[in-house]
Every structure is written in structure tokens, then in C-alpha cells.
């Protein structure tokens, strides 16, 4: 793994996304800071409604129009500010530099076009050429994602393929233009464990070959523990903890992270009671004072309810950050 420390592949600073509704507005992405280096995998974890997918869509500027917009902050791809690009320039970035793999291969493929046509669509936009070469390149892309008999599959319609195969096709579209970053939003939730393992292995191999950065949006701690280098834990639109996988699993600094890790049964090891988190996450527009996790936190004291904790350095080297007052007491 080669990493150029000076300019990260992706640098997100103080990103805030606002959703305005008639009833008021709120921030599903509230002050995000993170970086992704070449060949690195970042996991964004959190429960439903924590703002994971909003974070992903804001990176490629595909937020739902009119409803949500980036309020402030910066997203830099190799030093270039994405928020300043025109829509036409941004369209060139999408697919060729940052590609996305969505959760459901069933709905992200168009049922009325063949697999080959859908893969060549990406080429047509970013690197046009004659029809014949497009087909050859589509076959090539299918071969890269290890679809068996690609010459035959290229003319298949999505309904003729199995779920795992379809997800590979979605993967083929994503990697077709050799992007620098792939954002995968829950890419394997609908797949069997065996197919999931094959698919994740494939992504890893592609990463080793091309040095692309991967952002995994997931609630599956298995994926995080096995594939990611860094994690960002989200709660209520905020990053509550970030750092390397090893450190966060061994020594979670935020009670929310700790509870999430304890809530997942392990394949091996103890069969003791699983940790639970009482209550529900707050509703988006609920007025809040203090730490948004405090009402559900086992370790909260009066300060937690009164004042929002800043992002604090948990290990003293700037590599492991957490937004929790308890960090100060350690």
C-alpha cells in the first residue's frame, strides 16, 4: 500500500448539509472532517437515519435537489475543490473519478437494456469510441469483475442474471472508467455470505491493482473489521468517533461505538449477553442541548446534557478522535 501523505485522495473539511422542510431545517451531515488516501478503505458506520448515505451522496453532489444542499465546508479531490465545479465539470468527475455502487443491484440496473449497453454507457460519457470497441471494453470490464463467460453475459438482460452476478455488473460499471474512489453504499446487504465474500475479495483485488480508495457505507461490523483501514462512526448527523480499525475495535473512546461493537455477536468467543442501547435515536428536528447521544448513554453526566462535546484527541497523537467529554477525564 503506497500512500502519499501530503495530498490525500479525498479531503473533507467541516462539511455541512442542510435539509429544509416546511417544518424547519436540520443537518443530516454536520461538520464532517475526514480524509481518504490512495489505496485506503474507509468505513462509515452508523444506524439508519444517522446520515451515512447523505454523506455519500454529498461527496458526488447528488443530494436530492431542492430538499438538501451543502451549506458549508469543502470536499477536495486530490486538492481540487469539488464544490466549486460547475454541474458539467462535476458530471465528468462522477463515474470517471468517483464512482458509486448502490445497495440494491436489482434497482440500480435498467431492466430494458443489456448488461453490455449499460456498461458502455459509462464509456460513452467519459471515453467515447466506435461501437465495436465499446463492446470489447464492456466484455473486458466484465472479465475484470470475474463474471464467467463474459462474451455471452454481455448480451444478457439483468433479469437473466443472479443477484451476485448483477452486483458484479454494477461493480463493472463502477470500475469501467478506472475511478480513483469507489463509494459503496451497503453493497452486499442483499447477498448470501458466500457471494458477499467473493464480492468483497474482488473489490480488494481491484484496489490492490489500481490503488483506488474505497468508502464503505455499512452497518455490518464484519465488513468493517475485515476490510477497512479507518472508520468513521456517525450518530445523528455527526461523526462521533474516527480512527484506525485496530484502535477503535480495541479501545473505543465513544460510548456509542463501544455499545455498537458490543451489540454484535462474534463468530468465536463468549456467548455472554449482548450490549443494548436503550431508546431510539432522536428525531431529526428534535431540539437538542448537549450531546445527542446523552439520553441513551450509560455513562452520561450533567455536563453531557448541557454542552455539546467538541472533537477531542483520544490517544494524544491526532489519529483517533472522539466527540465525548469522557475523553478529557482519561
Amino acid at each position, binding site marked *: 500500500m503506497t500512500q502519499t501523505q501530503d495530498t490525500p485522495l479525498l479531503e473533507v473539511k467541516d462539511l455541512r448539509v442542510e435539509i429544509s422542510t416546511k417544518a424547519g431545517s436540520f443537518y443530516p451531515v454536520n461538520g464532517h472532517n475526514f480524509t481518504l488516501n490512495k489505496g485506503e478503505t474507509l468505513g462509515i458506520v452508523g444506524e439508519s437515519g444517522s446520515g451515512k448515505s447523505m454523506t455519500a451522496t454529498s461527496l458526488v453532489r447528488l443530494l436530492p435537489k431542492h430538499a438538501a444542499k451543502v451549506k458549508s465546508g469543502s470536499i477536495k479531490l486530490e486538492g481540487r475543490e469539488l464544490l466549486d465545479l460547475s454541474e458539467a465539470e462535476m458530471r465528468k468527475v462522477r463515474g470517471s473519478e468517483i464512482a458509486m455502487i448502490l445497495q440494491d443491484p436489482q434497482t440500480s440496473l435498467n431492466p430494458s437494456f443489456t448488461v453490455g449497453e449499460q456498461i458502455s454507457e459509462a464509456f460513452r460519457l467519459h471515453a467515447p469510441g466506435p461501437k465495436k470497441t465499446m463492446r470489447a471494453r464492456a466484455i473486458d470490464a466484465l472479465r475484470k469483475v470475474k463474471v464467467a463467460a463474459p462474451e455471452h453475459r454481455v448480451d444478457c438482460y439483468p433479469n437473466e442474471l443472479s443477484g451476485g452476478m448483477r452486483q458484479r455488473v454494477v461493480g463493472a460499471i463502477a470500475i469501467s472508467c478506472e475511478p480513483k474512489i469507489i463509494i459503496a453504499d451497503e453493497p452486499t446487504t442483499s447477498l448470501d*455470505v458466500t457471494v458477499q465474500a467473493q464480492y468483497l475479495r474482488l473489490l480488494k483485488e481491484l484496489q490492490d491493482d489500481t490503488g483506488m480508495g474505497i468508502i464503505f457505507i455499512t452497518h455490518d*461490523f*464484519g465488513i468493517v473489521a475485515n476490510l477497512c483501514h479507518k472508520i468513521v462512526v456517525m450518530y445523528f448527523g455527526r461523526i462521533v468517533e474516527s480512527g484506525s480499525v485496530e484502535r477503535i475495535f480495541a479501545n473505543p473512546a465513544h460510548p456509542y461505538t463501544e455499545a455498537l461493537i458490543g451489540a454484535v455477536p462474534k463468530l468465536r468467543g463468549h456467548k455472554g449477553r*449482548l450490549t*443494548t442501547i436503550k431508546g431510539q435515536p432522536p428525531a431529526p428536528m428534535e431540539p437538542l442541548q448537549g450531546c445527542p447521544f446523552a439520553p441513551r448513554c450509560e455513562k452520561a453526566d450533567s455536563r453531557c446534557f448541557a454542552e455539546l462535546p467538541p472533537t477531542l484527541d483520544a490517544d494524544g497523537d491526532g489519529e483517533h478522535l472522539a466527540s465525548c467529554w469522557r475523553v478529557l477525564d482519561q
Partner: protein
Amino acid sequence: MIKTPILEVENLSKHFEVQTGIFKRETKIVKAATDLNFHISEGETLALVGESGCGKTTTTRLLLKLQTPTAGRVLYDGQDINTLNGQGLKTYRSKVQAVFQDPWSSINPRVRIGDFIAEPLIVNEKVDSNEVDRRVNAALDAVGLRRQDARKFPHEFSGGQRQRIAIASAIITRPRLVILDEPVSGLDVSIRSQIINLFKDLQAEYALSYILVAHDLATTRYLADRVAVMYLGQMVEQGNTDDVFDAPAHPYTEALLSAALSADPTEKRTEIPMTGEVPSPLNPPSGCAFHPRCHKCIGDICKTQSPVPFLQDPNRTVSCHLYDQ
């Protein structure tokens, strides 16, 4: 620990006829479940694991008597459930209940949850309205909902609470066996652990037996006492959970377990790559159904003969030619 089984399944098979080809002239047979043998005792959890299409759901539907088997029997307290009718069948239905995957579609949105929870009781048992109220309250208490909630409608609840409602409805008839079909896969991590803990508590309190169908192997290992591994409608291995997970005997079990990701970065795993995908049940491979994907295939015998279950010890069976001698 030898207990009398509540449910015994003997040579159970379910085959579906499917019309294929142009003008649907050709009839093919899908063997959704073939020659299954297992039992479940009181207070025990048996998990069915396998990839999609391996027949787990068909098996649970046969046990719930939602489908009639092509061959074989399901014995409840020694009696074949397909001979049950009238009151006998009602008793069976109230003693064997189910919780399904999706709490959004398994609950009728127009019915107050108190009525929803009471339904299995009213349908299957002769009880007066005071008794119904008492039992609904007891069920709500057991699953950790408030008694006032009985007056509310399903849309007023979150996913985790809805799953609790579904569980309350399943346990109100004081069943002996509850079939859990992917009971936590639609829930968030933090809610999932609450429901898993609830299953354990209810089991301890009422000596419930569970048949669990889950594709998450970590949850399976956590909840199940015994596992049965299925592949293309057949049971390839069966045994105590820890034995099977620690030392899988069948090459399929081995490959399946190696694909599971553990939520612990210090745990190293060596994945046994399985080539290809599950073959179509319309054209199952000859011999051992797993042989085209098997990393331990020993040659012609696997391709031509289907293996017979081998009893390794009283609790462990495996169907593989590796154990033929």
C-alpha cells in the same frame, strides 16, 4: 441432556412441479426439500443455515403446515401433523408459532396491536374476553412493551418495537416451538441485540424451542444449540453448534463458514474460495449436489452417487463421500 423431542421430522420431502419451455409444455420438478431428518427438543434452538434457495423457508413452511409434504412425516408429540384436523390442528397451530423477517409487512396496519396480538389466541383457543385482555397484557409485559400500547396502531411503532409486537403475538398462545425466519435481519444493530436478548430471555422463562433461519452466521452461532446445514434442498451436515463451527465436517459447511466475516479485526480467517454459484434447482448436478463447487471432491464417486448420511456420533451427521469407509 436427553430430552424428548417435541417435533420429529422423518424423511421429509417437498417437490414442486414447474412448467418450463415454450408454451410451458415441459414439466420439471424442483426438489425444494429432499429427505430431511431432524428433531427438536424442549428449550432447544435449532438453526437452519445455507445460501438462498437451499430450502430453509420451504422446510419451515412444511413445519407450519402451510404446505403439504410430497413424502415423509412431521411428528408432533409422536403424531403426524398431516393427519391432524379440527381441535387437534388448532392445538398444533397454537403450540407452533412463527416470527417473520419483516415487521413492516407481517403486521396488519389497520388493526390495533392489542387485537393483532390476541388474534392467534382467539382463533385457536376458547377463551373469554377477560382472559384475552389478561393474556395480551402478559404478552406485552414479556416483550417489554407498555400495556397502554395495545390501543395503538402499528404505524406508531419503530421497527424494533414492531418486531416485539410480532413476538408478543407469537407467544400469546404459550407455544412450545417458535419458528424464527430471519427475525433480526431487517433491524438496526443496536435494536438487533435487544431482540436477540429478548429471544434468549423468553426461551429461559418459558422453555421455548426455536427453529432459527438466519443468514448471519454470527447470530446463528450466538443463538443456536444445534445447526443443520442445507444445500440445494438437502441436509449436508447436522450437529451441535460449537462442534460444527469449530470443526466443520462437510466441505460445504467449511466453505460457508469460512466466508463469514467476524466483527473482530484481530480474528484472522482463511477463506476457502467456493467457485461459482448455487446451481439451479431445476437442473441439480448429478451425484452429490455440491460436487461442482467442492474443493475436496474425490472423483467419480462424487459425480455419480449421492452420499448417504453418516452418523459420526449420536449428535452429528454428515452426508459426504469423504466419510464413506
